């Protein structure tokens, strides 16, 4: 806070200096105007024209000075807001906010100087463009980015189970016991077979033996069957006839 207090005092002092300049510039301008009027009176038109240019330049200086004074006043407001934690754009942490919004220093420069020729709306509004329109913007918004992914569904595991006190009572101690006695991991935590998928067993339909000209034994067998069949019919026929 003390650093911000110093900053505030410095900004206020700077502003006073700039305000003093106004008085001096005004006095100078007055003097130039008087001189110009006198030069016109005595007919020294060249001198009068030169003094008119000086006067115009003095006016430019004055307008620049006014801008500077306004900027300093704005800076003072921002520092005050940062200190008090209230007011325009007051942050929860003054330091953080200043650093976040004004990476190149305080917001005393006009936007086109600070942000280039074509600043985006987000830049002009001092918003972080990485924050989407539906996202939270507060300073803790990204704190759950690294949240344990298992916490996502865990909430509904609790909600789903509802009220089951009896179940807890019945299960807890036996489970504790199992945890002590039945947990028996392999030595060195090395699981030689676990985790390896079983090979997929393939089913092959049995092949029909086919009569094949190149297979004499098979062919002979087929022929033998045909002969036996023919003979059997012949015999049956012969029996039927007799």
């Amino acid at each position, binding site marked *: 806070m003390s650093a911000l207090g110093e900053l505030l005092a410095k900004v206020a002092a700077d502003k006073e200096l700039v305000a003093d300049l106004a008085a001096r510039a005004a006095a100078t301008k007055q003097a130039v105007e008087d001189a110009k009027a006198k030069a016109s009176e005595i007919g020294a038109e060249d001198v009068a024209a030169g003094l008119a240019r000086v006067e115009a330049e003095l006016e430019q200086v004055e307008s620049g000075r006014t801008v500077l004074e306004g900027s300093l006043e704005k800076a003072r407001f921002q520092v005050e807001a940062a200190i008090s934690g209230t007011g325009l754009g007051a942050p929860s942490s003054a330091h953080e906010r200043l650093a976040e919004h004004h990476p190149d220093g305080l917001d005393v420069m006009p936007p086109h100087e600070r942000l280039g020729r074509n600043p985006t709306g987000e830049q002009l509004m001092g918003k972080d463009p990485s924050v989407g329109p539906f996202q939270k913007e507060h300073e803790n918004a990204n704190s759950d980015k690294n949240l344990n*992914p298992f916490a996502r*569904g*865990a*909430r509904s595991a609790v909600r789903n189970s509802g009220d089951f006190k009896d179940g*807890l*009572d019945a299960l*807890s101690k036996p*489970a504790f016991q199992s*945890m002590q006695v039945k947990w028996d991991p392999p030595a060195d935590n090395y699981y030689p077979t676990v985790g390896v998928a079983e090979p997929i067993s393939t089913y092959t339909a049995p092949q029909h033996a086919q009569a094949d000209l190149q297979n004499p034994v098979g062919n002979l067998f087929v022929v033998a069957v045909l002969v036996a069949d023919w003979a059997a019919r012949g015999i049956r026929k012969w029996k039927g006839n007799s």
Partner: protein
Amino acid sequence: MTGDSLFRETMRAAALGKAEEASVLYDRIPKSELNNYHMFVVAFFAAALGVRFRDGQSLSEIKRFADEMRYDYRDVQPPVKQLVIEGLIRGMLGEEQMFDEISPEEQYRTQLLAIRKIVGQSPEMQARIEDYLTDAETLAAQWQSEG
């Protein structure tokens, strides 16, 4: 001892395989606190899963864990079920409909058995168990505040 620290003590003893101690502590938890205790167990289960699956939460990782767990508890009765373990972990990762198919009792028992396995096989969890218990406390408190 307040409710919260009782949950902690119970969970620590159970996770480290000290059944006697865990049972004695469990008996001291008031009945009215049991729901909060259950919340704490689930939160600690989430913390443990976060450690075990830090490097990846793919289906094959989950299946490998379930295979291992079935092997570790091969003598337990009733046996632990492969699909229950897988479903429970996937539910915790956000597939919440999984919980509809696993009874709360089965969930609770499997959570406890899995916690023992994860803590038992993680030197980090053993060394920093107080931190993980605190994480679980924080998470459970968050759920309570959400109502």
